[in-house]
């Protein structure tokens, strides 16, 4: 296979998540990067600045005066036919919020690493997912990473996913602030030419710089057109999962590391399972292994593609589980639990009522699973909100979660649907 990786060419290096992401950005070599520093993303901007200063990239680097301008300039660059990137965290992400919707509405395939950090108030610089969860309905593709390797791999794949002509949507690649961004790990890097080959030359569908064919970008839609354009945007989300799978598979051929919509860890015959995203999945895997040694049928579903939400595949993967705990590193403050919990519960509703899924090849299979699951009345689902503002989550806490799931299976009693893990009540 062309571009296949020989073992001796693999670079294996110790890197933080931020370093790995900055390295991926160097290899992607975007035409334009417009960025503003914010903890814990700052290193990405700093490291990338040295690449620019040392002439290692062709990138025009725009040192904007705010994140609002970072996203605005990135939008301008993307509309001008450039491969354009930015990166942010937390308050900066919140400041971009208006422009996130515009990037998606204009169908600009911008790629943005986000280093997840809590939102004020109170001000806090450490990890939770409140920032990106706040934009889960913005039309952006959201991909979560467990560790530095995944952040690196996901960023490279995100370019292909966003720029796919079937998609043309912006994509953010999320990694946990400090835990991943500042944690030193062993990361396998691709060669520059492999990244270049994998992402290919960017050929924009339209460009403002094509002055012989002037286009109007960002026109005013009234009630006669707005709805159709937003409907088209919604339709663009539909093929994303398939593109993510295709790109993930191709990436696997190149690197030996394949990626799906999620990772099902010892889930096949699991009776109890945790759903998580980000670095916590790594901690949960250790607990799963422990429990498996004790004969407990424990599993984990780690969500990778969070938006658009791959409902059907997730339902299929969880349909045989008897009790599920969804771990949310953010709250919706709606008394409904965390955002992932709400999504999982909504997805499982159809399963329990035998009307699972949309039509398609996968769904015949899903409907079968659905019928089986209906016979079992479907899984019991509980929610834990944990780790806000960087509060540690440890093995012991996750053990307790699995213990509760086992008790739910044994007694049939679910108890409180939403609990807070590791907090002083």
């Amino acid at each position, binding site marked *: 296979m062309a571009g296949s990786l020989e073992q001796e060419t693999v670079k294996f290096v110790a890197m933080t998540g931020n370093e790995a992401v900055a390295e991926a950005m160097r290899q992607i070599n975007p035409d334009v990067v417009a960025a503003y520093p914010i903890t814990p993303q700052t290193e990405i901007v700093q490291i990338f600045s040295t690449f620019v200063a040392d002439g290692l990239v062709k990138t025009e680097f725009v040192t904007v005066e705010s994140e609002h301008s970072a996203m605005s300039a990135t939008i301008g660059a993307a509309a001008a036919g450039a491969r354009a990137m930015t990166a942010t965290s937390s308050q900066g992400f919140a400041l971009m919020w208006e422009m996130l919707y515009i990037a998606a509405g204009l169908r600009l395939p911008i790629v943005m690493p986000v280093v997840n950090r809590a939102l004020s108030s109170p001000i806090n610089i450490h990890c939770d997912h409140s920032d990106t969860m706040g934009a889960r309905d913005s039309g952006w593709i959201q991909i979560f990473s467990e560790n530095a390797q995944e952040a690196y791999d996901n960023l490279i794949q995100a370019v292909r996913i966003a720029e796919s002509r079937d998609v043309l949507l912006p994509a953010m690649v999320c990694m946990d602030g400090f835990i991943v961004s500042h944690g030193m790990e062993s990361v396998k890097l691709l060669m520059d030419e492999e990244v270049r080959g994998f992402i290919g030359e960017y050929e924009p569908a339209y460009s403002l710089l094509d002055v012989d064919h002037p286009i109007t970008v960002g*026109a005013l839609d009234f009630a006669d057109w707005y709805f159709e354009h937003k409907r088209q945007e919604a339709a663009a989300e539909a093929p994303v999962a398939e593109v993510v799978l295709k790109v993930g598979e191709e990436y696997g051929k190149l690197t030996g590391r394949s990626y799906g919509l999620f990772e099902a860890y010892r889930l096949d015959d699991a009776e109890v399972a945790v759903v998580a995203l980000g670095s916590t999945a790594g901690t949960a895997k250790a607990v799963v292994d422990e429990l498996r040694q004790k004969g407990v049928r424990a599993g984990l579903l780690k969500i990778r593609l969070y938006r658009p939400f791959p409902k059907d595949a997730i339902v299929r993967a969880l349909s045989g589980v008897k009790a599920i705990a969804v771990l949310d590193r953010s709250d919706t403050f709606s008394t409904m639990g965390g955002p992932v919990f709400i999504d999982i519960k909504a997805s499982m509703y159809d399963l329990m009522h035998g009307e699972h899924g949309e039509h398609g090849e996968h769904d015949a299979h899903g409907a079968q699973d659905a019928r089986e699951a209906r016979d079992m009345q479907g899984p019991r689902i509980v929610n834990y909100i944990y780790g806000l503002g960087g509060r540690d989550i440890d093995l012991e806490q996750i053990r307790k979660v699995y213990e509760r799931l086992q008790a739910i299976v044994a007694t049939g009693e679910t108890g409180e649907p939403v609990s807070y893990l590791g907090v002083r009540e």
Partner: protein
Amino acid sequence: MANLRELSRKGELLTGGHRACAGCGAPVAVRQVLKAVDTPVVVGCATGCLEVTTTIYPYSAWNVPFIHSAFENVAATVSGIEAAYRSLKRQGKIQRDIQFVAFGGDGGTYDIGFQSLSGAMERGHDMVYICYDNQAYMNTGIQRSSATPRGAATTTSPAGRVITAGKTQYRKDLTAVMAAHDIPYVAQTTIGHWNDLITKVRKAFEVEGPAFVNILTPCRLGWQIDPADSIEICRKAVDTCFWPLYEVENGVWKITLKPREKKPITEWLRPQGRFRHLFKPGNEKLIEEIQADVDRRWEMLQKRCEVGG
């Protein structure tokens, strides 16, 4: 100096058929600006009257590439376009010379877009920023901005029974603020002075790096004037020294049109319905204060021009 015959032969880059009001100064400003540039141009536009009247889907009045993304960010958006251009040109993917222009109203420039503008100017993007200053938030229905002059009645600074002045604060002198950015070219002009406008905008495009041109652009609804008087009222703004025509080229301040005789401020105020209340008995002092402020600013400008020139 611009040649009217020559200009009239140039094609229209902003076509007719847009939905701006009769007598609106904004399309006049845009047409004059676009006539001043000979290279292909890419336009960015802040949310506002200009954008909403010219790009109602599925129509567009723009014969040039155009982007609107939000209200407060046209300078940042055009920064990104200009950065893309520099990057792609350096890579040999683009050969053409292209110019970049951002249009914002006073709300999108003096107020909500000020940070974005200041940042783009400081970074030195090769772009021209045009403020079409109609002295209030006209698109949302005539609310006061920091460009609204003292004494103007707007829907958020009405002339009331207790607050009789209308807007109580003086306007921000944005042109001077932009000059303080020490960029290669800053100027202010009006749509009523086409030759001055086109000469200045040409200079703005010619310089390397950022340029800012503030264009007094009447809104016949907000100013409460006859649509036929949009050009004439600009001349009164200049003749009373309320809106002097000047430029700051590489730090050198220069008045480009000195009125032969400085007219009293009432000649600018009286024709406009937004200042009607100032002429009611009891408000004489307000007019005196406004005159004093105009005098003070005019003196200051002349001093700057003496020193700079």
